[in-house]
């Protein structure tokens, strides 16, 4: 297998991984766009979503229908969790110093992880995630598994759906308004609290979907599974321009591809370091990200 | 002598021109008012003058404490302050969780001579200069009648005193030019009267040039010698209070037709 084949293979792996990062990055970007908070717990929502899917698939077996059901259940459960977190932990701190909200977000994140560990049904030990039996579609020497295709297709579909919601519905318009200028949106009669909750719900639902896709591709679920994807998705969001939805998608794919290429051609050890290297580089060169706008604080 | 000169400054916010081709000169000792309806771009002008925003085009020149003309268009706020321009904010920005005294003392920091090591090891140089800073800060507080509250947290002061403290803090940086952003906002007529007296007093005492943004017409008309009127990011009138208040464009922009600004 020559260099080109290996490169193409790694690109395929990267696209599949990147689409998951992109889904997750969307949640970061939307929440940041609307409440200017890094939701550290976002990666853990991915974990909860994956477990939601796990219980459905473990109970009803793996068929295309149950898979869709798992996606729906995971997304709904996480949407609710997202709203609960927002209402109980973040809303009271909306006017507090930012560092307080950040610390709370860290607390929520660790609470979800360790809470999952001590809850009997989840527990500390990794569980095997029921998934489709791998079927390979070789194209030349490049192997594409049907799981990679499912991951890619479902992610793209969800991204289209989100783009539609944000750009072409009344709710989306309201979201953009709140993100642009919260007090003004409030004065225009938009129920700001409701829109913020909705944003959390939407972001969390996408995280749940990302979790189930992630678990299908890497069929194992455990309480800490969300940390690393969460961090990388955050980097993706910053890379694309935090607050920008197309930016998050682009950033996600770049991160996925960068990671697999690093693993494939440089060193697997550097994969995480590369992620943060990219973050630092982008912060130095263009802090607003690839597609982000320069926004200065109101004085 | 010209203290401040803004030449054709404009700024874009996401394609929207918030201020366009704004020109202004400010002579030493002058008290200039900048007025205009909400959203006219007054605070944006302030922010450009003080380095919080940088204009998309145009230049700003400032004659610093040493009489040197500096191009401050792309300088940072702290550099501009150190040259002798101080400001207050429309929505008070005090160091809320620090004491009244510390709020003032912070303003003396950029002139501090002793080094971190003097502070850490408590050398005589430290004690000497700290005592000096405290003495100056208390003296300044006395002017504003706040010396008896020096140990209170800034956030616990009543609103009017917070306004005063912010002005005191700006003065502590030792400016030659003071920019006041709506200092009378939220004050009752009596407090506004007192504020007018105070502004006149500090202007004399500290030999200041003052640029003032204000909504309260009584205040503007009462103490400003010259007024610039902004609307939609452009200057629509300039002149003495009398001239400006009779300008039909101003009346139209401000309150619609047929309103007497002296009312």
């Amino acid at each position, binding site marked *: 297998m020559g260099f080109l084949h290996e490169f193409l293979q790694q690109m395929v792996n990267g696209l599949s991984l990147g689409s998951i990062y992109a889904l997750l990055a969307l949640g970061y970007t939307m929440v940041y766009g609307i409440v200017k908070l890094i939701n550290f717990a976002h990666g853990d929502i991915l974990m909860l979503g994956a477990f939601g899917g796990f219980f459905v698939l473990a109970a009803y077996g793996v068929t295309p229908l149950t898979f869709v059901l798992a996606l729906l259940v995971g997304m709904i459960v996480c949407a609710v969790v997202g709203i609960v977190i927002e209402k109980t932990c973040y809303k009271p701190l909306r006017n507090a110093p930012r560092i307080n909200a950040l610390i709370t977000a860290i607390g929520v994140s660790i609470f979800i992880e*360790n809470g999952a560990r001590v809850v009997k049904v989840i527990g500390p030990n990794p569980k095997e995630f029921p998934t489709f039996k791998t079927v390979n579609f070789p194209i030349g020497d490049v192997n594409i598994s049907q799981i990679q295709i499912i991951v890619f297709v479902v992610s793209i579909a969800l991204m289209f759906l989100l783009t539609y919601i944000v750009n072409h519905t009344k709710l989306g318009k309201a979201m953009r308004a709140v993100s642009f200028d919260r007090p003004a949106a409030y004065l225009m009669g938009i129920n700001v609290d409701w829109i913020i909750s909705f944003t959390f719900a939407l972001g969390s639902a996408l995280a749940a979907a990302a979790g189930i896709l992630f678990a299908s591709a890497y069929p194992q679920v455990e309480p800490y599974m969300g940390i690393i994807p969460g961090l990388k998705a955050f980097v993706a969001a910053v890379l694309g321009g935090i607050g920008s939805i197309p930016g998050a998608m682009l950033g996600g794919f770049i991160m996925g591809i960068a990671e697999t290429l690093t693993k494939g051609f440089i060193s697997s050890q550097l994969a995480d370091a590369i*992620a943060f290297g990219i973050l630092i580089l982008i912060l130095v060169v263009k802090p607003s990200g690839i597609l982000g706008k320069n926004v200065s604080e109101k004085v | 002598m010209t203290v401040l000169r803004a030449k054709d400054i404009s700024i874009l916010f996401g394609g929207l021109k918030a201020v366009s081709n704004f020109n202004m000169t400010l002579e030493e000792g002058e008290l200039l008012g900048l007025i205009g309806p909400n959203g006219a771009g007054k605070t944006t002008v302030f922010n450009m003058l003080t380095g919080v925003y940088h204009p998309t085009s145009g230049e700003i020149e400032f004659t610093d404490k040493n009489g040197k003309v500096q191009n401050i268009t792309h300088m940072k706020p702290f550099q501009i302050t150190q040259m002798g321009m101080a400001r207050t904010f429309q929505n008070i920005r005090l160091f809320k*969780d620090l004491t009244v005294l510390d709020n003032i003392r912070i303003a003396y920091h950029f002139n501090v001579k002793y080094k971190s090591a003097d502070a850490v090891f408590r050398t005589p140089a430290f004690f000497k200069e700290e005592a000096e800073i405290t003495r100056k800060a208390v003296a300044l507080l006395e002017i504003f009648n706040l010396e008896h509250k020096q140990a209170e947290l800034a956030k616990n002061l009543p609103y009017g005193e917070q306004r005063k403290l912010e002005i005191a803090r700006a003065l502590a940086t030792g400016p030659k030019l003071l920019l006041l952003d709506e200092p009378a906002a939220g004050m009752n007529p009596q407090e506004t009267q007192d504020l007018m007296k105070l502004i006149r007093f500090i202007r004399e005492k500290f030999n200041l040039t003052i640029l003032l943004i204000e909504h309260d017409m009584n205040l503007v008309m009462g103490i400003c010698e010259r007024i610039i009127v902004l609307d939609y990011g452009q200057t629509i009138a300039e002149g003495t209070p009398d001239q400006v208040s009779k300008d039909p464009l101003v009346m139209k922009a401000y309150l619609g037709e047929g309103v007497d600004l002296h009312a």
Partner: protein
Amino acid sequence: MKKNIANGLTLAAIAVVFTGILAALVYIGVIDEYTAQILTLAGINIIVALSLNLISGFTGQLALGHAGFMAVGAYTTAVCIMKFNFPMLLAILTSGLVTAVFGLIIGFPTLRLRGDYLAIVTLGFGEIIRVIMINLEQITGGAAGLKGIPSFTEDILLAPALSMLWVFSVMIITIILMSNLIKSSYGRAVLSVREDEIAANSMGINVFYYKMYAFTISAFIAGVGGGLYAPFFGYLNPTMFNFLKSVDFLVIVVLGGMGSITGTVIAGFVLTYLQEFLRFLRDYRLVIYPLLLIFIMLFRPSGLMGNREISILALWQRLFKSDRTQSKVDKAGERQ
């Protein structure tokens, strides 16, 4: 002024006597080795937590990688002693300096931006440092860890007392120097950055510079803490400095009160002791910490102490000078 210096000297004297007595008690066995171990560990935790408090509590910039700084300090000390035969004090100071350089490198790109990025970048740094330590096998022993680091003394009977003496001395020096710094114009500059960056800027404070200033000092202190950690434990492993360790420090700072040195000291002792004491809770303990963080932020964001301090001097005066009769009554009460 003279009074200030005199007060400072009294304070230092009290500290020296206190530390000496404690170490002596450990040496003669009145305080057993296990208790000494926990107290000494608490001392190190307090040093690192103080450094975190400087950047997060006093400067308002959330940093999540102090375990990483500690790791840099710990490995530097170990290498300095083992490879280059540095004397202990020089090794520990070197590790502080090396860590400060790391602080500069990380701070420079991130501190110009809003505070949130520092949190993520320091978190990433903490993780990357671990990867680096694992890969630098020649120097760090890799994943198997670095063993056989010389202790403060090779005399097994003297070791606990001497470790405690070292750690407590450094802790007390850190407390004194740090509070001196905070209560100076430089400290006020740092505080103004926390309070309101824009206002600080308009007061002539170079906000970026003072963030870097605080962050670098913070890294230095954390490095010194790590530098004490290496000879104290005698064994280093990259996994000892994971994210959860950074969170431990954050919990100490938040519980004690962001911006309170006394609070950090109290919380440091309490939480280090509790970690041992709460072991019966097993994994449930892991849930208590984050809950503590959330509840403090929601209901008492100022922590135990807020940004107030207990001054030993003031306490001393209140107890023994201002109302002598009262304190006599109290002492009588104590004896019963």
